């Protein structure tokens, strides 16, 4: 049986890792929000999504969280009229990525809040451990 307080630290660490991966996906989406194709009618960058799943961490033996899969958003691309663009088709339309800046920003905010919550629980577990150790001090 693992010590619950040490397990809390491990779980919080896994949560931090999961949220960092989510932040990475958000950055990718924002960085590629203007990435189009190179040939006429070519598909642009497709927005990435990330999902989590509760899973056993073999290193620490606790049920934590990990990235289930990184998928793509199947929603339709935005069409932009720009006949001079390299990826413009016969009618002058360019397919732009299905990245919505507002959505990415709210996602980023949520990621930051979740990250903070995980940090908070890790700090708390550390405090409980030090309280226990303080009992031995006179």
């Amino acid at each position, binding site marked *: *049986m*693992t*010590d*619950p*307080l040490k*397990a*809390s*630290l491990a*779980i*919080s660490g*896994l*949560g931090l890792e*999961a*949220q960092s991966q*989510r932040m990475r996906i958000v950055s990718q989406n924002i960085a590629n929000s203007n990435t189009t194709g190179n040939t006429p009618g070519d598909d642009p960058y497709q927005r990435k999504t990330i*999902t*989590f*799943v*509760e899973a056993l961490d073999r290193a620490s033996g*606790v*049920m*934590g*969280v990990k990235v289930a899969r990184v998928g793509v958003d199947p929603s339709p691309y935005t069409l932009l009229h720009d006949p001079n663009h390299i990826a413009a088709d016969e009618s002058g339309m360019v397919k732009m990525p299905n990245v919505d800046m507002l959505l990415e920003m709210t996602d980023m905010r*949520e990621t930051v*809040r*979740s990250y903070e*919550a*995980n940090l*908070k*629980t*890790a700090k*708390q*577990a550390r*405090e*409980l451990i030090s*309280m*226990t150790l*303080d*009992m031995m001090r*006179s």
Partner: protein
Amino acid sequence: MSEIYLSKIAGDQAQWLSVRQSLIAGNVANANTPGYKSQDVKPMDESENSFLNLVQTNGKHLAAGIGNVAGVGTENSSTWEVFHSGGNVSLPQEMMKSGEVAGAYQLNTSVMKSFHRMVLATFGS
């Protein structure tokens, strides 16, 4: 000293609080996991008299969770909100539970500290 059960009770409560803290950590880590249901420990007085919990009778038995000691069972707790993805972890609620745990743990260790001082005083050291 076997007549004084205070250390046993305090130890049990510390164990219970630690398990609760680890479940809170699990809930917070899985706050964005689709379909994840928030978990909590059973109240201490209830679990103390329960004989229905699984116990390890052999050291080689696999533990079914963290700190799954006899008398500390987990249950799906009632939460404030359910998300569209099926998860029901409310971060404010988890933070409040975490605060409760910290307060109770602080009280527990303070009582044990002063009790320890009393014992030392009897021995005159």
